[in-house]
């Protein structure tokens, strides 16, 4: 049994299903995974406890959802942005020592019986949904805002009052007045839970969660009891689903962004530079306090080193895609 942290109608439930289908097909039906939505067995934020206890064999989630147990959890997806893309940070997990650090945190430091992998490298997440226009840091001060993981600490240090909620509870919370602005993740998921019904200003581009990935959790005993070839299928299925999810996300996210703009009457803008600058400053102010923890410090150092090298290549090498886009679709971009 695998439970997600998403409600049944969220596109991410489909992404999880993509993984399940691949695993079943690759194993010739020897592995059958029952995929359940958030709340079917346990609540969205409880999946780490549930997988550790063996209540669930597996979960499809993000690591920021258990950062109450250890803030370093958030480094595996919702960490400081050093300039590397989401794909580059997935590379850190598999090629830059991230996987071993993850294992050390969950198994050695926290004593949990879980095995985890990171999948789909998500596109940078929008700053989110606001009832009115926001142009400066002063505009967002005192807002009650929803985000998760270290992004919560980030915005708190920028003067917002932050609440963390699972995706399915955002719109009800907005209506109840628990929050008055929020981000979740991407145009499709945001649309699926009805963000456009409660706010009309959508701000793209942000440094709060620019490089997140899905977290695949397995109960250690459920995993180790399987034959080695099935273990391999579960493990490499994560890699396979990353490509499948990325392709699907490109088609669906972009189409839903058009829909939000053209059909739902949502105003889509890019986040003002002043707020983006403040975000980067807030990251660098936030880190020293968090780095008092030894593991956190080592983990950030490893990411920083990776980003310094990899993002240099990424950025130096990348052509200005916007220039080409502007050439062929003149006047469409409003950067």
């Amino acid at each position, binding site marked *: *049994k695998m439970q997600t942290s998403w409600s049944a109608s969220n596109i991410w439930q489909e992404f999880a299903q993509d993984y399940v289908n691949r695993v079943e097909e690759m194993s010739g039906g020897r592995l059958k995974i029952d995929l*359940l939505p958030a709340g*079917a*067995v*346990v*609540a969205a934020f*409880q999946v780490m*406890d*549930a997988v550790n*206890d*063996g*209540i669930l064999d597996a979960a499809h989630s993000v690591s920021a959802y258990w950062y109450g147990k250890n803030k370093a959890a958030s480094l595996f997806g919702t960490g400081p942005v050093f300039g590397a893309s989401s794909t580059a940070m997935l590379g850190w997990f598999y090629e830059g020592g991230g996987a071993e650090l993850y294992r050390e945190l969950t198994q050695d430091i926290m004593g949990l019986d879980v095995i985890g992998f990171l999948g789909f490298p998500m596109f940078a997440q929008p700053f989110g949904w606001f009832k009115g226009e926001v142009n400066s840091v002063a505009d967002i001060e005192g807002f009650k805002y929803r985000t998760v993981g270290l992004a919560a600490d980030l915005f708190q240090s920028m003067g917002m009052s932050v609440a963390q909620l699972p995706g*399915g*509870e955002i*719109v*009800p919370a907005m*209506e*109840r*007045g*628990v929050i008055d602005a929020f981000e979740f993740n991407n145009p499709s998921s945001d649309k699926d839970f009805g963000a456009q*019904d*409660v706010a009309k200003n959508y701000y793209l581009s942000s440094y709060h969660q620019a490089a997140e990935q899905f977290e695949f959790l397995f109960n250690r*005993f459920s995993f180790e*009891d399987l034959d080695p070839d099935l273990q391999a299928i579960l493990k490499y299925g994560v890699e396979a689903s990353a490509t499948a999810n990325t392709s699907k996300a490109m088609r669906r996210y972009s189409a839903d962004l058009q829909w939000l703009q053209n059909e739902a009457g949502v105003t889509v803008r890019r986040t003002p530079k002043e707020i983006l600058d403040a975000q980067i400053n807030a990251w660098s102010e936030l880190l020293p306090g968090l780095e008092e923890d030894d593991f956190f410090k080592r983990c950030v150092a490893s990411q920083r080193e990776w980003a310094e090298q990899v993002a240099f290549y990424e950025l130096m090498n990348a052509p200005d895609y916007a220039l080409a886009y502007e050439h062929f679709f003149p006047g469409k971009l409003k950067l």
Partner: protein
Amino acid sequence: MTDPQVALMMLGLFIVFVFLGFPIAFTLMAMGIGFGYYAYFDARRMWRDFDRLDEAAGTWDQWSTWFEGFFNNRIFDLFVNQTFTVMSNEVLTAVPLFLFMGYIVERANIVDRLFSTLNIASKNVPGSLGVAALITCALFATATGIVGAVVTLMGLLALPAMLKARYKPSFASGIICAGGTLGILIPPSIMLIVYAAASNVSIVRLYAGALLPGLTLVGLYLVYVVGRAILQPSSAPRPSADEVPDVPLGKLLVMILTSFLPLAFLILSVLGSILFGLATPTEAASIGALGGMLLAFLYRAMTWQRLRESVYLTVRTTAMVCWLFVGSYTFSAVFSYLGGEHVISEFVQGMNLTPIQFLIMAQFIIFLLGWPLEWSEIIIIFVPIFLPLLAYFEIDPLFFGILVALNLQTSFLTPPMAMSAYYLKGIAPPEVRLTQIFAGVMPFLFCVIVSMVLMYVFPEIVFYLPELFYGG
């Protein structure tokens, strides 16, 4: 037996066990744990350590390890996990606060002032005493939400007054029973919070949605009371001049100002701050509780004793409702782990019902369940079985919830568990017989059904306010 069949058996056995009369919270818990033990039974994993001790056969170590393995079932962890989920449920935090507000207001010596004021204010209306009693019930029930308290307090106050005015006992008792039950429907109602927690429908939308239907039902009740007083004056004779004191307009205004307005203001500010998004229901409830304490203080009704009573009753009623959730969360997690939800929805889909047929069937079942059971059990345990089906029939869970809330008005009024009637019988003069009370309640049950039909024909009554406040 397949897992889904086991799930159905679990549901069936539960219904049987409910009738044994054991506290339902623990019955649910037991069914969840019992069937969960089966669902999570995995000998290899549970006795993992035992197998390792094979060579130490016959030793105490081996036996105690075997015994440990017996309890090494994941269901116990699931139970704890679900308990914690109930403990950290943000919607339910409003429950103790609204209960506390209710218990405080109930003790604020407010109901007699309210009744006598409304009685004088409505004296020129046909069936004036009945109208005054009904409105007092509705208002008081809205503020407290505690059915038993409203029915008994009003039964002691308004019933003798109506009997003295030669009202038909059945008519008089019907008014009080039906009026006293309104508190579970008209926001801020605990029942709607509980429905919100069970269904994930936003509570503020539910509140907005329930407002007009609640007023519609009050309106229907009033039409019936006034209509009957006109058509059959003998059942509700006009009070003679000496029975209702002639109060000059100025003094009447003062009476309204001191009795009606403060309570109305309290209700409106609680409700308004929720609907306009100024405060969460939990925050509004805390304001309501503080306001209730202030009100009681101003009416000189705030004693140490009453405060203590309210506090202790709050913890008891909260524990009752929330432990029911602890049981049902565990029950339903196991139920869906076994695939029970899936089977039920396949079965219902296989019946080839139209949405309206499904809706009538669901409401009829809930109506029937309302005979033996009370609203808390029905909403927390049985309504969630229908909820996953709503999407298939394209029925808005908000709309369904309002219909359920209307429907459950009847659960207090239908025997064998007609709590309203029993409360009233408990305090009424002995010559008022239970059969008379039930006879008097019948027309009000009919009003409830009419109101449900109205909602179905004119769904705007439900959707107008939620859409106005929060958009489609």
